[in-house]
């Protein structure tokens, strides 16, 4: 993508709050421009000294006043800028998360590797994009201040102006030449960082296996290798960026030297004053700020270009503009209370018949999956999918729910074809209990409800036999559970997940093997209670005999194909 396109993507963020952005821009322009005035004042002071006139104390007072105003302004602008900075991060994050949780199609496949790596997109790549807006402010302020300074130099001595400009132009060219290389180095560094954060996330997501296996030293060695690889590419990236940055600082000093060389003859001839010398030195460093900002601008723009691509890849169809689409940020007052109402199914949402025909899913790479699977669930029926390990049972229910993409086949809801089940087979039509439900680090009630009102929370927890467990928890439903519900037992996690599905009052309950962490007795009680409460239409994966006995229909899968099914 062209850098121009990237800047347009970034600027859509600034346009969310144009006043705030313009305030920052104006503030920093002022902050950068004051030294132009101060430099001029010092020139007058030095000249009057050289000519032996009386000391210009008034000008000195102005000098102090200018500085005081400059720094006071900075505090105000900096606070404002930090507000903008958070806003620039929030817009893409909200857009992407909202897309991941609600846009059509299977979402998990859009995420890169480990969740830790996905977080790096939301953290580092979003930051890269924000850096562009930041550097535009600095660049604009620097260009304006530099232009004024150059104009002043031109009025004094055109040769000096050119002499100052030459090193600045050379430095700028150097910065621009380095740009594309920096981009490659940057990408390598990012990838290495992603591997490190992904590794940390993975290892601590499976910390029990590491500890149980006594693998701490071996994990440490692998981590060390990843770190060393990252250090190599990051060092190259850092030094490259630093060259660009230091081209700024250094150029000012070199430019002043070149100016001295040029004026040596005019000075000897008495055409220039001591004050002019001070002015050259001061303005040379002002103008020489330019390559630094031009360089930074290009570096950040290129980094952002990579980042925007990576962010866009999180959307269903990679869409760079979608990353920064306008959205409310609710930063100042916080988000309004979540107004999710209970919606019981009405009209066509009421399930009469779910019909799956010819469903085929091939996992890329392994080539396994399911092939040509037919399935019918009618209102009031309990349909059980069973079969040996690796038969494709989980793939089947995930494909029906649209959590994994299908290669062929139709899914019909009351006879109407459902193109995208991932947005249709959701509450109140369907709810899902995966084999290993993910609970979140928050109070149990919150992780079960996920925003819906808690009127029948207690009842649903009773249905899933969580009542006795809750009685033993210190704060009941307000008990904060650890990451992924680690402080709950496997059975408790599953039953909390079941309550999460039930509390949405789905027409169709989809359950992937409730039995895996429950004893037969508890599971039977759960099903008794659930059936008695009127949740009677369900698609289950199970191989427990007592569940199979309850089934109105049993579908047996093996090797991804239906090998036997009760006719329906």
């Amino acid at each position, binding site marked *: 993508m062209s850098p121009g396109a990237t800047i347009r993507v970034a600027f859509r963020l600034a346009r969310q709050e144009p006043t705030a952005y313009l305030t920052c821009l104006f503030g920093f322009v002022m902050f950068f421009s004051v030294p132009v005035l101060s430099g001029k004042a010092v020139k007058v*002071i030095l000249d009057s000294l*050289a000519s032996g006139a009386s*000391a210009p104390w008034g000008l000195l007072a102005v000098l102090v006043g200018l*500085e*005081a105003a400059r*720094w006071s302004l*900075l505090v105000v602008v900096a606070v404002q800028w*930090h507000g903008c900075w*958070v*806003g620039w991060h*929030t817009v893409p*994050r909200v857009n992407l*998360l909202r897309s*991941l*949780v*609600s846009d059509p199609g299977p979402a998990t496949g859009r995420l890169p590797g480990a969740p*830790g790596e*996905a*977080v790096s997109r939301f953290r580092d790549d979003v930051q890269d994009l924000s850096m562009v807006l930041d550097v535009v402010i600095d660049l604009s302020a620097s260009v304006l201040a530099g232009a004024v300074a150059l104009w002043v130099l031109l009025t004094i001595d055109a040769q000096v102006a050119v002499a100052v400009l030459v090193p600045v132009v050379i430095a700028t060219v150097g910065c621009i030449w380095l740009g594309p290389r920096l981009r490659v180095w940057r990408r390598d560094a990012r990838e290495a960082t992603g591997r*490190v954060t992904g590794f*940390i996330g*993975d290892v601590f997501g499976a*910390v*029990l*296996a590491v*500890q*149980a*296996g006594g693998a701490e030293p*071996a*994990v440490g060695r*692998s981590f060390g290798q990843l770190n060393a690889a990252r*250090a190599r590419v990051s*060092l190259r990236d850092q030094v490259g960026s630093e060259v660009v940055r230091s081209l700024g600082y*250094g150029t000012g*000093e*070199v430019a002043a*030297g070149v100016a001295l060389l040029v004026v040596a003859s005019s000075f000897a001839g008495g055409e220039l004053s*001591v004050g002019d*010398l*001070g002015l050259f030195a001061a303005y040379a460093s002002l103008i020489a700020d330019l390559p630094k900002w031009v360089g930074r601008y290009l570096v950040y723009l290129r980094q952002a270009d990579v980042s925007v691509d990576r962010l866009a890849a999180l959307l269903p169809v990679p869409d760079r503009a979608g990353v920064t689409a306008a959205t409310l*940020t*609710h*930063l100042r007052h916080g988000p309004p209370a*979540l107004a999710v109402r209970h919606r019981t199914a009405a009209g066509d949402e009421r399930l009469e018949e779910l019909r799956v025909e010819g469903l085929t899913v091939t996992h890329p*790479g392994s080539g396994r999956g399911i092939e040509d699977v037919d399935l019918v669930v009618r209102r009031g029926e309990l349909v059980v999918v069973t079969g040996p390990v*690796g038969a494709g049972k989980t793939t089947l229910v995930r494909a029906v729910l649209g959590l994994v993409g299908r290669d062929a086949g139709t899914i019909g809801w009351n006879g109407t074809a459902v193109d995208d089940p991932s947005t249709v087979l959701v*509450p109140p039509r369907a709810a*899902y209990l995966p084999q290993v439900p*993910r609970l979140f680090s928050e109070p149990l009630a919150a992780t079960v409800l*996920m925003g819906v009102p808690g009127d029948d929370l207690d009842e649903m927890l009773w249905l899933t036999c969580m009542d006795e467990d809750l009685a033993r928890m210190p704060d009941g439903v307000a008990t904060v559970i*650890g*990451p*992924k519900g680690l402080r709950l037992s*496997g059975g408790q996690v599953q039953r909390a997940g079941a309550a999460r599905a039930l509390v*949405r009052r789905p027409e169709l309950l*989809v359950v992937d093997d409730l039995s*895996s962490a429950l004893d037969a*007795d*508890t599971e039977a009680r759960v099903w008794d209670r659930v059936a008695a409460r009127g949740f009677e239409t369900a698609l289950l994966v199970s191989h427990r005999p*007592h569940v199979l006995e309850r089934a109105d229909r049993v579908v047996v899968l093996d090797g991804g194909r239906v090998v036997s099914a009760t006719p329906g």
Partner: protein
Amino acid sequence: MAVPGADPPASRRAARLLAATLKPEARGLAGIIAVLVVAMVLRLALPVLLGRFADDALAGAGVDHLTRIAVAYTLAALACNGLDLVVVWRSAHVSWRAGNRLREQLAAHALRLEQAWHGRHSPGQLIERIDGDVEAMGRFFAGIAVHLVGNFILVLGMVVVAAIIDPITGLVLAVTAVAGTAVMIRLRMSAVAAREAEREINAQLYGDLEERLGGLEDIRANGGGEYAVHRLHGHSARWWQAARFASLRGDGAHAMAALVFGLGTAGTLVTGILLQQRGLITVGAVLTLYRYADMLRMPLERIAEQLKEFQKAMAGARRASTMLATEPAIADGPLDGSALAPGALAVDFEAVSFSYDGRTHALRDVDLHLAAGTHLGVVGRTGSGKTTLGRLLARFRDAGDGSVRIGGVDVRDLTVAALRSRVAVVTQDVELFRASVRDNLTLFGAREASDAELADLLDRMSLGGWFASLPDGLDTRLGGEHGLSAGEGQLLAFARALLADPAVVVLDEASSRLDPLTEERIGDATQALLAGRTALVIAHRLDTLARVDEIAVVDAGRIAEHGPRAELARRRHGRYARLVRAARLEDEPEEATA
């Protein structure tokens, strides 16, 4: 009484950690500083040359003389900037080495901490602790030489040269530098607290995002999307507040210090003018002094930039040192593996009580003795304390009262590594890594095995067909497209345990995700895993326990019944016998084949 916001031990601990991390780099840092000193001396010479140029020009020097000064100026400018780059390169190098060492130290320490601690710290939070915080510290390491030391040398040099021009101007510059620095230091601490609060909110934000992204399917299929977005909004709004507050404190400190320096510049000019009007110094010297006073600002702005990094680094170092100061609840005992005999080992629970929360007992007064090589089936309803038995045995927790012994040695007397090398635990939660199949089996090389051995192992675990379908064999990365079904994951976990060749095996509902057919198919492999070892097989499916020697029934944290399986099954009013009868009614097809 502790003053809020001022926690000297934490700050001191953080400073000690920073010092300890940098200590091995002392030689490299010394070299960097040597180069830096040369660069700074050259930079100091520039204003002196400028003043000389002015004075000599006013005195009517020739073009050649002035040109020579100009050439010297230009060369010095080029050299000091070139050397600056060398310093940046070397200090970044040092910073990566030191930072990675700290990352590895933190990760190793976190791996030693117990389950309960990990229950409170999500992987997302740990990414922020181990990488995010250390990155902030690394940026600081990289900046120390260039910005802090370099600028200190520069400021000191300017004061010295100014004092040579005239002691009074040297004094004015010195006072300016000291006053400006004092203001910065005074305001710094309050800014650290605000910055820390901001980072903490960020850690929460990323931790929450990591969890939600990991649970995306649960969220989507249950319509929890709006809620997830709502939480992101909530965290972002809190970040907004914290960032603005931290900026007010941080940039406020920066501006206050800058004002002091601005006043210093004015003071230097006034002094210079007064001295020049009395004929004590030249106009060129005033120009030199003004350039110095002006240059004093640049180190300031760099130090301020570095100050932010310092604030972040200190906040990161505080959290890192706090984490390192968290003692693992599971401490190593004095005995190593040689205290245990080879082969199967006896397991004894003696008067063991345990509570997770200090209020309710998960286990109460448990006595359980297993001869070496015995296979014990543990049954009982969910939450009865079955899993806790295994956790105490492998020391994921320590018993409150009583003792747990393996081969006659109290598990707390052994090093954790020695104990866990002999006790294998396979739970219902299969934990796989997004790494190669080989790394998943050998746990990144913790166990040594040839490729042929691994292939053979997978074959014995009924994973031969799956293995054959992998494009890159043992090098195939798991996760993403080469996913395993839950049951296959369980088999992989079996293989992993078998590879460890343990003396005691705890299977905690390990086969619960397998269908009866598969379970039967790997029955032989399971027996191979258990043969010649002592085993605790925790299961709710009784047919899983068809081949164990003894049975223990756990109820509400107590052993309700324990004895040989056949004997218990015959007891008319026994609990196990009752369970078997109930299962037979329910699981008729299975019992018929068993």
